[in-house]
């Protein structure tokens, strides 16, 4: 029962939850949220893979990759949210 196993399974679970959310959710914001969960799940898997049982230091490369992933994800999220906002405004115009 090492942390990597625990958190690896956790990561996969989070990814799966996110995936379910992404394909099932109808609310636009929740779909973004779900995708973000997927991203965190993928991050878990990479970090777990980088983990070495102490005292060995972990592999830094996956860490760098996850950081990149986080930044990429926030960018994508921002664009998606901007789309949601704009679309909402336009649909509101329609209603008015």
């Amino acid at each position, binding site marked *: 029962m090492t*942390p990597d196993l*625990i*958190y690896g*399974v956790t990561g*996969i*679970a*989070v990814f*799966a*939850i*996110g*995936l379910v959310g992404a*394909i*099932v*959710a*109808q609310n636009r*914001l*929740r779909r973004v*949220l779900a995708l973000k*969960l997927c991203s*965190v799940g993928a*991050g*878990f*898997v990479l*970090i*777990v*893979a*980088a*983990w070495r049982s*102490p005292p*060995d*230091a*972990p*592999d*830094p*490369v996956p*860490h*760098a*990759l*996850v*950081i*990149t992933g*986080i*930044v990429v994800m*926030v*960018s*994508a*999220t*921002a*664009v998606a949210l901007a*789309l*949601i*906002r*704009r679309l*909402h*405004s336009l*649909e*509101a*115009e329609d*209603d*008015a």
Partner: protein
Amino acid sequence: MIDTMVIFDLLLAVAVVALAVASMTTRDMFAAIVLFVVFGLLSALAWVRLSAPDVALAEAAIGTGVTGALLLRTLHHVQTVERKAAPEPLPVPMGVQIANAAFCGLLTLGLAAAFAGAPRGGPGFDLLVADAMSISGVDHPVTAVLLNFRAYDTLMEVVVLLAAVIAVWQIERGLSDAPAPALGEVWQGFARLTLPAIVVVGTYLLWVGSSAPGGAFQGGAVLAAVGLLLLLSRLYVPRPSHRGAARVAFVLGTGAFAAVALLVTGGGRMPFEYPLEHAKTLILLIEGLVTISIAVTLAALFHGREPVALPERAAGTGGRDDA
């Protein structure tokens, strides 16, 4: 000792999963976002447990902090801009739901099995990185990877950020300044007080990045928080005349990064191959500029629309200037 840590790990894992489920199932969107923020912080905690403090910092600051702020801002927009009740989404037939559930279950099982069957702690880049650290120009391995070994990825990551801000400006182009969330009076005072402290923290994070956990992204995120606060507290109101400067700020990090990458080829080197003696300087320079860009960009992403001169007739009604 081990046992308690395992219990802690287990509890944390259960909490993370539970929060993830909760954020997906809670009906109230606001609650879902809050749950998500908590989930993000706990995930960051878990990553600390996995000896990944840099990632944890980045996740807490960007993945959770900035993302949460973006989500809340959007939720605010969606909830304040009046529109008729959205059409009820049509129900999906039971068969499709069952199929979804079955497939996802199967998929999860498969992923878990594959994960369980895979070697862990196996040979990665550890040895390669260790060998190359001495000539990387920095002391902290993650920073070395980010800004030297895989600098190309990082450059492209910043490009993604740039693409995002361009896309966001493009998407929300011409939108009038719809009511944005603002902080109350008390909080504005609080903001004034905290701002200098945050700037210091951010700069520090950037600086330590070369030798200890921290770096451009984390620092940028923290500095972006400054921007958020400025925007929220209306201490800074974007104006059309600031656009040029903003554009420059957006591309500053990317441009510098790319330019350095190319310019080093002047010495008969490969792109990104910093001369050993100047490596640390160059990396710090790049980091600094990238940090600025990241901070400004994240703040701009939060703000969303490009600051434009409002046509008088359309003021406050959500009209478009380019229609």
